[in-house]
């Protein structure tokens, strides 16, 4: 795990976040009928950053923000060696008829997002769901799921690991690439 290569950091990292925010604003305007939902655990960090930046850029004082845990909806329950522990879900609003921005940091097999779409149904029937991801591992998909807003694409084999670190948690904003990791995510 030591030989991680930085593929995005510093100013370019911040520019990517800003670009994503502006693209989102282009489609969602004043966020009157839109809301943000981060996927636990690491998608929440990305969602939190997008949420803060959107508030700064739009000057809007309230954009609905929720966090969603998909552990109970995963399709690999009883198939993993060690069970995942559930995290908190906190959505204090209904998504009925709203435009939902589902946010996760790395889009890999697409199975987490499938589970998230399932879980989301339990909070109402959204008008529209869009997916925001910072990193798209485009050749590793198991399901027909694509991002609507995308930071960068990474071409990697299954054994590789892509990890996003955040200033708030790891003291630096960057995306790391590990060519050979046995536990790829």
């Amino acid at each position, binding site marked *: 795990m030591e030989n991680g290569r930085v593929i995005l950091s510093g100013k370019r990292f911040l520019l990517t976040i800003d670009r994503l925010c502006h693209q989102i604003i282009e489609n969602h305007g004043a966020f009157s009928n839109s809301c943000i939902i981060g996927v636990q655990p690491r998608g929440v960090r990305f969602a939190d950053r997008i949420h803060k930046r959107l508030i700064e850029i739009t000057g809007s004082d309230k954009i609905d923000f929720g966090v969603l*845990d998909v*552990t*109970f*909806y995963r399709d690999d*329950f*009883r*198939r993993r060696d*060690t*069970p*995942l*522990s*559930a*995290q*908190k*879900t*906190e959505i204090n609003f*209904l998504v009925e008829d709203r435009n939902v921005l589902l946010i996760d940091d790395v889009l890999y097999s697409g199975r987490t997002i499938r589970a998230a779409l*399932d*879980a989301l*149904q*339990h*909070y*109402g029937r959204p008008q529209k769901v869009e997916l925001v991801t910072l990193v798209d591992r485009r050749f590793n998909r198991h399901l027909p799921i694509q991002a609507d807003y995308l930071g960068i694409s990474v071409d990697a084999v299954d054994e590789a690991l892509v990890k996003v670190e955040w200033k708030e948690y790891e003291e630096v904003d960057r995306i790391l690439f590990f060519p050979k990791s046995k536990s790829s995510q």
Partner: protein
Amino acid sequence: MSELSTKHLLGIKHITKDDINLIFETADKFKEVINRPIKKVPSLRDVTVANLFFENSTRTRISFELAEKRLSADTVNFSASSSSVKKGETLLDTVNNILSMKVDMIVIRHPAPGAPLYLSRHIDANIINAGDGTHEHPTQALLDAFSIREKYENLEGRKICIFGDIQHSRVALSNILCLTKLGAEVTVCGPPTLIPKYIGSLGVRVEYDVKKALNWCDVANVLRIQLERQDIKYIPSIREYTNYFGINKALLDSLDKEVLIMHPGPINRGVELSSDVADSDHSIILNQVENGVAIRMAILYLLASKNKVSSI
């Protein structure tokens, strides 16, 4: 740590403090699930659970069944009164017959202490003890401790008194084991005939005066007098028991503190608890019932995760 140390829940005796905390943390998440508009998750959709009730039950049975349904498990119910047990079939034969219909988990309530342990030695399925005679009732103890934890966050050093028929109560034994594992101080209070002689060896204090006990404790867990398990008279009369050991509003008002009132149900109103106490703000009896579903979902979920699909 995100895995239980055991494949079955036979009793609190068989699980560790870490297990208990893992169950609580998972139950927190399930409590959020059962308060959603849609209270169901698909986790156990490929699991079949048999509820074997060889003894009567309302709360535990409905609670288990709801927990299973909210996890999307398939369920089959069985009650001894309407089954071939009446024709002379043994417990092991009954269970093996049910298991050959491809059942993954067994929830069992049985009048014989040790019945779940006996089964666990002979069959493969995960077993959850839903009460075995006068021995243990682990899910009740877990939901009781979970309800206390909801009020007080930490059970370390918390003072809890269990009132009533300690001798015949599986809830009492499981509660004592669970609370002491979590670091709480436990006292039992009841008529001397209904308190086992060597109960002190479990690390609990004994008190025979209700008022003194109430003055000592933060939480009072009040149990029912189990007349159906008593073949001889342990107390002169129910009326005398109520006079000496019943908890009523006047008694609680005479204390200079507030005590949280719990009861595992079914309540004999006017015997161990007066109605005004059972329905008061201090009572968390209905919270206990709600938490029961979350705790049982957590246990079913965590035990099911021990059974890998590839190994089935």
